[in-house]
């Protein structure tokens, strides 16, 4: 149990995305981007605000629409207080 908790702490990472900036770069509204990848506008909003983590499929679709790689659009950062 303790080992599992330690492992979880070591792996505590946060997902940040640059969707808003790149959407603006492509001059797309949330509505337009949503329509292109087949989701609701609210889903784009939720992803931009970090309230929702998209599936791999949606992440790939978003990256393709914004003409970039997924790891440029989404990145992992270590949580504060993480020793590593």
């Amino acid at each position, binding site marked *: 149990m303790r080992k599992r908790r330690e492992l979880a702490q070591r792996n505590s990472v946060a997902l940040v995305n640059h969707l808003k900036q790149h959407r603006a770069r492509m001059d797309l509204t949330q509505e337009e981007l949503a329509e292109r990848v087949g*989701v*609701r506008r609210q889903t784009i909003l*939720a992803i931009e605000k970090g309230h*929702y983590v998209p*599936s791999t499929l*949606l992440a790939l679709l978003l990256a393709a629409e914004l003409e970039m790689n997924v790891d440029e659009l989404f990145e992992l950062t270590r949580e504060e207080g993480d020793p590593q």
Partner: protein
Amino acid sequence: MRTEMDVLHMDERQRHHWLEANRATLMVVGVVWLLMIAFELTEGRSAGFLIAMVPIFAALRLGFYYYYARDRDIRWVQPVLFVVLFTIGHWLATTIAWVGELSTGSWLWFVPPAPSHGIWAAAAQTLEFPIIALLTDKGADANLPRWLEDVIMLLNSFIWAGTAFLVLRAARRARSRRRTEGP
């Protein structure tokens, strides 16, 4: 399989929240179910069916989890799921047959009025086999407490489910044996 989420054209975030809502609803239903058991007991009634369904629902939930998680190495899940669902189906069929048999008039055109009750009586007699039919034949069902009636009814359905499972398994094995032996 097409689900209600497909019909409503939900995207993946909506599906996620829809399933979260299902979970919350299920928890509320669980609490209401427990309150119904408590109410029945305080009223001095047996609540046998309500109590008996608690472990069945728990088993169903576990079974569906393993089914959807595709943990195929756990071999007992599918047989258990089959037996539980068959038991519930048989129990429901028996209940419907009794409703039809005891009904005194037509009900939403579903239960025909007398004298068409014969078909319901025949269905009930068939579905009551073996335990309930045996008890009725011996006249031993008259003085049974309500909770014991519920347990016997579920046990009767369980016997049907177990038999169906064994028959199907034997048929499947025979078919696969024929295939491996070849022409």
